[in-house]
């Protein structure tokens, strides 16, 4: 039985780069269950917050407490980058990679990867170098690779930015399926429509701080802060 890595509690964490505060001090609790969408204008710190959660950014001060030790927490979460980072290998080998890192046999990893390839409908490109895939296919592959390790927590940074409607729909459908299977999801998006379709709760970031947080339906229906009102109305927030 794998230990549960959530809930996660972040207290008073700040991320600085070259002396400049990017986010924080931030306090946020991530529960065991749910689909959280992080929203906010450009430069509000959405990506930095995700990277902080995932351990790609270091916190200056404060505390980050997982329900388990850091090693277990790291092994049971996956991150999907806005611009997919794919290995210079075939599509199948890209999915096999994290499985092999976890000590799964080559045969089992290959079988598992092929199942994922079929699931994301990349059968005809399975043995093609990942670089040759389209933008949507690359992101689906990155998502499949992230899910192949059966993470308890899936973190996604604007996974459908720059994708067309069809690719976006496919990815959203895969995310909803993942959510139904019990995986905790935290995702950033600029797309208000997408946030309304997927979010169970929303974190609204503004100028590096959490400005508002609440259930998705309440947030979209009656945001409490002026900035959130402007943002949800689809107007430009400076």
């Amino acid at each position: 039985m794998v230990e549960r890595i959530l809930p996660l509690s972040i207290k008073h964490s700040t991320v600085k780069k070259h002396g400049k505060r990017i986010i924080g001090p931030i306090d946020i609790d991530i529960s065991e269950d749910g689909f959280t969408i992080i929203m906010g204008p450009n430069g509000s710190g959405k990506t930095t917050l995700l990277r902080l959660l995932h351990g790609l950014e270091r916190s200056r001060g404060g505390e980050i407490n997982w329900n388990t030790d850091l090693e277990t927490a790291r092994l049971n979460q996956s991150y999907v980058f806005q611009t997919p980072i794919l290995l210079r290998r075939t599509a199948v080998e890209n999915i096999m990679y994290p499985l092999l890192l976890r000590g799964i046999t080559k045969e089992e990893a290959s079988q598992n990867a092929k199942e994922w390839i079929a699931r994301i409908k990349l059968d005809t490109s399975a043995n093609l170098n990942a670089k040759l895939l389209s933008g949507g296919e690359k992101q689906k592959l990155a998502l499949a690779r992230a899910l192949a390790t059966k993470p308890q927590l899936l973190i996604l940074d604007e996974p459908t930015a720059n994708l067309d409607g069809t690719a976006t729909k496919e990815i959203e459908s895969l995310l909803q399926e993942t959510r139904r299977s019990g995986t905790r999801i935290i995702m950033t998006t600029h797309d208000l429509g997408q946030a309304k379709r997927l979010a169970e709760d929303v974190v609204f970031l503004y100028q590096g701080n959490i400005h508002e947080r609440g259930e998705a339906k309440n947030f979209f229906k009656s945001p409490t802060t002026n900035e959130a009102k402007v943002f949800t109305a689809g107007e430009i927030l400076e």
Partner: protein
Amino acid sequence: MSDIVEGMLSAFRLIFSLDRDLFEIIFLSLRVTLTAVIIASIIGMPMGAWLAINRFRYRRLTIAILNALMGLPPVVVGLIVYIILSRSGPLGVLNLLFTPTAMIIAQVIIITPLIASISHQAIRDLWAEYHDLLISLNTTKRQRIFTLIKDAKRSLLTASLAGFGRAIGEVGAIMIVGGNIDHLTRVLTTAIALETGKGDFAFALALGFILIALAIIVNLAIHSISKTERGSTW
């Protein structure tokens, strides 16, 4: 001009006459150089990868020194290896001086910095691309190095071929530590130097053409085996 034509004709005559001495020299040249390239690659590639992914206090200085060592004068390397392997030297008891092994040692010292430096540049670029992913996947340093070497194999092949190019044409160091002994340590480059000294330019040129042909054939063979350029995205 006539020397060049005569040299080319001699080269063909030598090859087609299946001259036993010539093939012995060719095989020894290949054996020494390929062994040195393999050893230098085994040392240089992980070294380049390690330098690419680690941050430490004197990293820049180390890289600068590594780059400077690419220009190591072979004669000086030969001299140092000679002193170390000579009877009164620290490794004299091994009796390696004037053997192919001594020639391999000298070549490894000459080409390892070259292979490590080119590998470092190739892997540094790939590391910039993979950095966040490999950190995100919680990889160990060893796994990172292994992944980077595997995925940068085409660039690393170029590093090995550059090492091969430098080693196969090298004469100063292997002349000193090998001694150019007939049927024992004579390779193409030292044979060319000898024939030139004797004034037999046609024969020296013939050996020179064979050396160039050998370098091209080995490069083509390695490119063909490794399928370089076939996976190009354009």
